[in-house]
Every structure is written in structure tokens, then in C-alpha cells.
């Protein structure tokens, strides 16, 4: 890695440490939900709708119930008797658990079959007879608000159209005034197509209700086990202390494992009904067709500038396809997530956006794919617009960005829509990326190639994210403030156990969090065990998504460790027979000022704290502490990306030749893990820009229901990435760290698209929508662009 040399904090505990969790994974000894087998466990399968929109006339499960290997069949009617046919979503809507009145998307849940093995369960769903009365579907968001559009949500009393919400941010009058006075205004229509996070492990659950103890245990693919426990308690009426959720090793999440899915609730009901553990694991088609989708934003953006290339204003109008139920997972007060951070990294005067959400006959979701609550869509919009503007002005896109980036002295900076960016040195990051890429030389090469008829593209993006939700004053999910707890126990021999509320899906918490605590206490990371993913063993917190683990839970771990350190000081003072104020924390020890020979490490202090040593009045023994961290603000990581592509104008094929990525996520606790996260996001960007889209046809059929149709990048589509780093600490995070898990997913798609459009500039292409498949690129060259989200002409 190239970049500004990092200063490792934390008494040497920070740095590129290999991961603790790898030992089990490389031996095939991870424990994922589907690896767990309980005595007497039953297996479930779900019957799903083949139609996008239809009235259900009848559901006859008698033949399935008669199957010799079937233990139970649950239909919507059965759930309705228990008041569970519908469940609340994370966005103040309701979602059908098992359909009773209509099916509203292809793949919707209709019946839940529980059998003695998974093959029999699959056999039995074929025996259920459902009579449908087909209805015309809404499969195109752009027609969802037409007067003639079929009504998706006739279950909602008084609902007469497919509108979910109208929402605005920014100052419309001020923005209009800026636009009216601007020398140059350019606009662009763009679609951020429906996508899917597709973790390699699908979603699933084992529900085990013990009627004698009155306790429900769930082994679940959950990114947010504590929040899920609270929701299950509310849904089922079981007391919350009698629900335990274990989220074991997760095979990726990326947002897909934040919501509560109908299958989870059905498994609980089935376990309560049968008295046996019930396992339900999605297959891949179920995952892609019914689980959380992402994006599906139809955007019109405009940017205003002076003739000299000073960006003045930005406005956007968005149609947001939310599918059949509004089940987006984001802080409750933000129906469009954090989309209104769309002013990006630029110093401009005014901005305004309006977002209208609509129902369609597609699966629910929306905020589900490493998007930092819609910052992905926001960054794409502004970064495409800046490139369109550069083209209009005849200015190099790097030069235009450099002219308009926020300057270091402007931080903390309040953007026109109200976000307070904590820290940044944007020009430094862009300069580093340009140096690493050899930008000037690349432009010369491009000119030479163009002269020879080759189509080489150079695309930039500069992103700012807001992550680490969030301040309890205005961020909650279903009334739960977005805080996280940490419990730290130091054993008598000085070894520590940290219990945290967040759950790793591959991010390496067992290593990073051990480094955080080790750094505060002068221990080795090997001496800190991290416990997570079990609600009976860990403190409450909202979970891992939105790049919030390090900014929120990591901060909680540090605060708990500092409490331990403070108590250790008092104990050490008693041991050394000095006043606590006479001690200083240095080199991982409490030592007497001016007498460094008299020093005690946490190990010695811990033994004393558990011993019969006489402690000062009012001081409890032991060395344990808890903390709850309420972030005062989000953290704002940023970065500069440059993507070099080669495009074959005859086939439309795009090859990504190079990808330079400079990320600034503040202090890096484990740079190796940080870089790994960036690698992932860059592959996401290449995938979304070039391959990935969940497409529908006019009948509402999902055409992205398998990995044969929903194309994910492989090692051959991805180049070897060139990473760089700058470090601008967050001023309010206790160790100066910012979240990074989604940065590259957010920042990289516009770099790829800008690169392809740049390659095609000599052919007159100004914009083409993702995914830039060979067909899409070829059609853009022909001047007949494809709609990326709908399989119709």
C-alpha cells in the first residue's frame, strides 16, 4: 500500500495483525447456522408465489399434511388465527408473513411446511394447491403513480394509490435562486438499478422453543441480534428475557441479514406448535427473489455552476421503488436514508432533493447492500453530474473536482442539507490518487490511443460518507436509539473478555476489538477474547450495518477499557501506597511519576483487585466495567478513486484495467482488515457498474433469481487493486477511527461508469445506465440506450 505513513496508536496493539477467527475457518470448523444440528430437529420449506400479483382464491394443504414425513403445514389462515399473518416492518409499514388476501410479488411466502428432512419438506410444498385470480402487476416504478396503475396495497384502509411517501431535504427556494443565476446548468436522468447483496451464505434460522423453561432460542443469520430479540418479543408476546438469539458465524451479510423475514417468524410458530426445533434455510433463488433487495432509485439530477467551473448548486428528484411492502431498514426518521448527503464532497451554496417512494409488485427491501443508508445512490448522482458538467465545460474532471472540493480549513463543515462533516483533507486524498495512477500520463496515453481508434476510459469519483449511526437525538430504529454497549471483564491473571453488541459477518471483530482493548490496557491482543453474537452473553446494541461497528461499538469497547484503566489506577495506587494522582499511564502500565521503576501492568493489578488487598473506601474489587456509547455525530470517511477501463466498441465489452483507491477512514486499527474491506467494495463497484441487476419483465417475473442470471464478479473481472491511504482522525471518536465497511461499495460504482462513459466520449455518449453489460454499452454507442431495470423494449 502506498500512502501517508500511519501512526499506530494503542501502545503498539494496532497494526496489520493476522486474524484470530481464521484458525477455525481455514480448517472448515466455522459454525454457520446451517451447520447446527439439534436433536429431533425438523426442516422447513416455503411455498412461494409464482405470480407477481394475484388474489388468492384458496389454499389447500391437505395433501401436504398427509405426506408421511411432514409434521406440520402452516398457512396464512393459520397465522391469522394467532394474529401473526402480518408483521410490522422496520419502516412503519406492515408485511405479510404468509399471504392471506393477495400475493404482491413473485416469490412471496404462502405456506410453511415442516418435515423430518429438507428433501421431504421440498416434496411437500409441491403438494399444496393454490388457486389464484391473477391481477395486472406494477413492475415499473415510473408508471406506479399513473391513475390507471393497479393498486398494490388494497390492504391499507383508504389507500387509493401506490405512493409510499414524499420527502424533501434542503432549501428549495435558495436552490432555485442559485440555479436561476448560474451560467451553466446540466442535468442527467439515471437509474441505480435494483441490486441484491447476495451474501454467499443465505438467510436462515433454527427456532427452538422449550415449553418447560418457557424459553425460545434462535440460531439466526442476524446482523442485529439484540434489536431482533426486542422485535420478536413484541411480535410473539414472549417476555424478552425468555428469548435468546445466537448469531453464530455468518457467511457475509452486507445488509441482507438486518431485516426479520417471514420464514423466521414461521419457524418460531412451527417450533412452538410442534415442540421441536425447526430449521429453515433459504435456497439461493429465495434469497435473490424475496430477501432484501437494494437501490432501485430512478433519479434526475441537475448541477449549477459558474462559467469558470465553480459548482454552485445541486438538485435532485427521485422516484424510489420500495417494492410491495415498505420494509427499508434505516433510522426511522429518514425514509430516503441518508440520500440527502448528496452534495457530496463539494463546497456549494444550496441544494434541494425530493424523493417519492412507490409500491410496486416486487420484493420489499431497499436499504440492504453496503449502501450506508443510501449514500451509495447519493454519491453516484453527484459524481455522475460532476462528470457531465466537466464535459460541458470542457474541463478535466480531476481539475473540476480539485477546484470544488471542500478545503481542510472548512472542517467541521455543515453541508447545505445539514450534515456536519467531522474532518477531512480532500485535496490531499485526490492528489495522492492522481499521483498513484500517474494521471497526467494516463491522459496522454488516452489521447494517443484515441488517435489510433482505441477506447480507453479514465474515471474518477470522490466520495464522502456519513457512517456510524447514530446520535440518539435524531436516530433510532423503531424507537430504539442507535447506541451500543460493551462489557469488559479482566480476570485475575490479567486476561480479558470483551462482550459486544455487534455481530461480525466477516469483518474480523474478534481481532479488531481485541486490538482496541489491548491498546487501552497495555495487553497483547491475544490476551483479549471477544464474545459476540449471543444475546444472553452480550450487552444490548443495535448491530452491525451502516459501517457502524467501529464508530459506535468500537467506541463503547474503548470507553469500557478506559473505565477499567481508571479503576486499575486506584488499585495500583493502593498497591504502591501512593495517591492515584501520583500515577501516570505509560507504556501500558501505571507508574509513579518521576520513578518509572515503580510500575504495574494490568496483569499484576488485576490479581490484586481480586485479592484480599485492602482497597480504598468506596472502591469495589475486580476490574470489570461496562459502557454504552452514544455517538455525538456520524463519522465521515472519504476517498478518491480512479478507474481505468478499455472498451471494445464492436462488442461493448468493458475490461477494468486498473483501480486506484485512496481511502481515509481516520485511524486504522488493523490496516490489513481495512484494506480487505476496501477490496470487497471495489469488487462490488465493478459488479454493480458492469454486471449486477435484478431485472423484471412486464408480468412482474423476477429475472435475477439465480447466479446464472444475477451475475456477480469473479476473479477474472476484477483487477489487482492499488490502494492508498490518508489518515484524518475523527475528532469525536475516542481513538479517531471512522467506519470503512461500505466506503468502497459507495464510492466505486461512479468511478467505473465515469470511466466507461469517458472511453465512449468520442462516440458522443454522455451517459449510460448501470449495469454496463456488453449489450448496454453497445446500445449506448448506437444511441439507443437500454433500460437497465426492465426487460422490455
Amino acid at each position, binding site marked *: 500500500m502506498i500512502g501517508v505513513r500511519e501512526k499506530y496508536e494503542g501502545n503498539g496493539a494496532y497494526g496489520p495483525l493476522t486474524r484470530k477467527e481464521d484458525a477455525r475457518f481455514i*480448517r*472448515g470448523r466455522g459454525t454457520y447456522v446451517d*451447520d447446527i444440528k439439534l436433536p429431533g430437529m425438523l426442516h422447513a420449506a416455503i411455498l412461494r408465489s409464482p405470480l407477481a400479483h394475484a388474489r388468492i382464491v384458496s389454499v389447500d394443504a391437505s395433501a401436504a399434511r398427509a405426506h408421511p414425513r411432514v409434521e406440520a403445514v402452516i398457512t396464512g389462515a393459520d397465522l391469522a388465527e394467532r394474529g401473526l399473518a402480518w408483521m410490522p416492518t422496520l419502516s412503519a409499514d406492515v408485511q405479510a408473513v404468509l399471504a392471506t388476501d393477495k400475493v404482491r410479488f413473485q416469490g412471496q411466502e404462502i405456506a410453511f411446511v415442516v418435515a423430518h428432512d429438507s428433501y421431504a419438506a421440498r416434496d411437500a410444498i409441491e403438494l399444496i394447491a393454490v388457486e389464484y385470480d391473477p391481477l395486472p402487476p406494477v413492475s415499473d416504478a415510473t408508471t406506479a403513480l399513473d391513475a390507471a396503475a393497479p393498486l398494490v396495497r388494497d390492504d391499507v384502509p383508504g389507500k387509493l394509490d401506490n405512493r409510499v411517501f414524499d420527502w424533501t431535504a434542503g432549501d428549495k427556494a435558495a436552490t432555485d435562486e442559485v440555479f436561476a443565476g448560474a451560467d451553466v446548468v446540466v442535468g442527467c436522468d439515471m437509474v441505480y438499478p435494483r441490486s441484491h447483496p447476495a451474501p*454467499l451464505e443465505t438467510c436462515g434460522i433454527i427456532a427452538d422453543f422449550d415449553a418447560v423453561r418457557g424459553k425460545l432460542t434462535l440460531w439466526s443469520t442476524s446482523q442485529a441480534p439484540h434489536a431482533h430479540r426486542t422485535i420478536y418479543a413484541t411480535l410473539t408476546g414472549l417476555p424478552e428475557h425468555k428469548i435468546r438469539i445466537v448469531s453464530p458465524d455468518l457467511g*457475509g451479510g452486507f445488509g441482507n441479514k438486518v431485516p426479520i423475514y417471514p420464514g423466521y417468524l414461521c419457524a418460531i410458530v412451527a417450533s412452538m406448535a410442534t415442540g421441536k426445533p425447526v430449521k429453515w434455510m433459504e435456497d439461493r433463488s429465495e434469497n435473490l427473489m424475496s430477501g432484501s433487495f437494494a437501490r432501485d432509485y430512478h433519479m434526475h439530477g441537475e448541477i449549477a455552476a459558474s462559467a469558470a467551473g465553480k459548482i454552485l448548486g445541486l438538485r435532485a428528484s427521485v422516484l424510489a421503488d420500495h417494492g410491495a411492502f415498505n420494509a427499508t431498514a434505516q433510522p426511522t426518521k429518514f425514509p430516503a436514508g441518508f440520500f440527502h448527503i448528496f452534495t457530496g464532497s463539494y463546497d456549494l451554496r444550496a441544494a434541494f432533493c425530493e424523493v417519492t417512494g412507490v409500491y410496486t409488485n416486487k420484493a420489499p427491501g431497499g436499504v440492504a447492500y453496503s449502501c450506508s443508508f443510501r449514500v451509495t445512490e447519493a454519491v453516484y448522482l453527484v459524481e455522475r453530474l460532476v462528470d457531465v458538467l466537466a464535459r460541458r465545460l470542457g474541463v478535466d474532471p480531476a481539475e473540476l473536482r480539485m477546484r470544488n472540493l471542500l478545503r481542510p480549513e472548512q472542517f467541521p463543515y455543515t453541508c447545505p442539507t445539514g450534515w456536519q462533516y467531522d474532518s477531512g483533507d480532500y485535496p490531499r486524498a485526490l492528489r495522492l490518487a492522481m499521483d498513484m495512477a500517474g494521471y497526467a500520463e494516463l491522459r496522454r496515453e488516452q489521447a494517443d490511443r484515441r488517435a489510433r481508434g482505441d477506447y480507453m476510459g479514465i474515471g474518477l469519483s470522490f466520495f464522502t460518507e456519513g457512517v456510524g449511526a447514530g446520535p440518539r437525538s435524531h436516530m433510532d430504529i423503531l424507537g430504539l436509539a442507535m447506541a451500543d454497549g460493551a462489557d469488559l471483564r479482566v480476570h485475575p491473571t490479567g486476561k480479558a473478555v470483551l462482550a459486544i453488541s455487534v455481530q461480525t459477518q466477516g469483518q474480523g471483530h474478534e481481532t479488531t476489538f481485541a486490538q482496541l482493548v489491548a491498546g487501552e490496557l497495555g495487553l497483547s491482543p491475544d490476551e483479549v477474547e471477544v464474545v459476540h453474537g449471543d444475546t444472553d452473553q452480550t450487552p444490548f446494541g443495535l448491530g452491525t450495518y451502516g459501517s457502524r461497528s467501529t464508530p459506535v461499538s468500537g467506541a463503547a469497547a474503548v470507553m469500557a477499557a478506559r473505565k477499567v484503566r481508571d479503576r486499575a489506577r486506584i488499585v495500583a495506587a493502593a498497591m504502591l501506597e501512593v495517591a492515584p494522582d501520583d500515577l501516570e499511564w505509560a507504556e501500558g502500565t501505571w507508574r509513579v511519576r518521576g520513578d518509572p521503576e515503580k510500575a504495574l501492568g494490568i496483569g499484576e493489578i488485576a490479581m490484586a483487585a481480586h485479592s484480599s488487598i485492602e482497597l480504598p473506601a468506596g472502591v469495589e474489587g475486580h476490574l470489570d466495567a461496562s459502557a454504552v456509547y452514544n455517538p455525538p455525530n456520524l463519522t465521515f470517511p472519504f476517498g478518491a478513486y480512479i478507474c481505468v477501463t478499455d472498451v471494445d466498441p464492436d462488442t461493448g465489452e468493458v475490461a477494468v484495467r486498473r483501480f486506484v483507491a485512496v481511502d481515509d477512514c481516520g485511524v486504522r486499527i488493523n490496516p*490489513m482488515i481495512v484494506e480487505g474491506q476496501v477490496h*470487497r467494495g471495489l469488487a462490488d463497484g465493478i459488479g454493480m457498474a458492469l454486471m449486477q441487476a435484478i431485472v423484471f419483465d412486464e408480468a412482474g417475473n423476477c429475472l435475477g433469481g439465480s447466479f446464472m442470471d444475477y451475475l456477480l464478479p469473479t*476473479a477474472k473481472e*476484477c483487477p489487482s487493486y492499488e490502494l492508498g491511504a490518508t489518515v484524518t482522525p475523527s475528532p469525536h471518536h475516542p481513538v479517531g477511527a471512522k467506519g470503512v465497511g461500505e466506503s468502497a461499495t459507495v464510492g466505486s460504482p461512479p468511478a467505473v461508469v465515469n470511466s466507461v462513459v469517458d472511453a465512449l466520449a468520442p462516440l458522443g455518449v454522455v451517459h449510460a445506465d448501470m449495469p454496463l453489460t456488453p449489450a448496454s454499452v453497445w446500445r449506448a454507442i448506437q444511441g439507443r440506450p437500454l433500460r437497465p431495470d426492465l426487460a422490455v423494449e
Partner: protein
Amino acid sequence: MKLTVTVNGTDHTREVEPRLLLIHFLRDGLGLTGSHWGCDTSNCGACVVWLDETPVKSCTVLAAMADGHRVRTVEGLADGGRLDPVQEGFTQCHGLQCGFCTPGMMLTARWLLDHNPSPSEAEVREAISGQICRCTGYENIVRSVLWASRNGG
């Protein structure tokens, strides 16, 4: 039907349904849960094991087809207590995050290095191109295989 499969050097005889997939035989029948199921369509490679000497996607192989054959899974990659260089490489180069694709990736890597002890980066990418990783962007998987190639093959 009754079948006998030699898995990681041990014979296992079981009565199974003819339609049983090899991945389910390994995971549910033998409790070898290191091999994972990911997609059903032979695209992702989370289920890659060796059938005799060849990596196969065990979600698309019937257990019956392994009757009388040898299967090698991730549980059979280490030689007793000694890790395979590929396993070491994945640890040293951060070649895994969630770990779900890792067993399949490592078994393909082992096969590659057995046939091509000093592969180029492009050859490594080609070898693993039938498998999907959602976490690493492939960069560190490639580095891991190259590390193994340099450190004992």
C-alpha cells in the same frame, strides 16, 4: 441405495436416497460441515470438494456418483496437525473474511498448485474464476495462493 465413499481416507458406508446430493451427504450424513452450500446452480463453488483427484461442485454431484470413489474435503486438507501451505497462505494474506467460500477456494488452490507449482497471477485468477467470493474482491485470495506457491507449494 447403499454406497461407500472414502472421505479424507476413511470409508463411509451409508443407506441413502438415490437423489441425495454429495454436498448433503457430506454435511448432513457425515457431519463434515466445512463444505458449504451456496447457490444450487454450480456458480458459486462454496461446495467444491475433490472427487478422486478433481475439484467438483458437490451441489451438482449425486452422492451415488461418489460410490466407490475418494472425496477430499477441507477437513482433509491439513496433514495431521500440520496445515497445508494453502491454509497458511490464506491466514498470512488475509485471504478470507466471512470464511464461507474459503474451503472451496482452498481446495481449488491445492489442485492448482499440485498441477502448476508456480502459477502466475493470471493463472490463479483463471483457476478460481468458477467460484465466487463476496468479501475479498479476490485480491487477497490471489495473494494467498501465490504465498502458498512460494512457501512449500
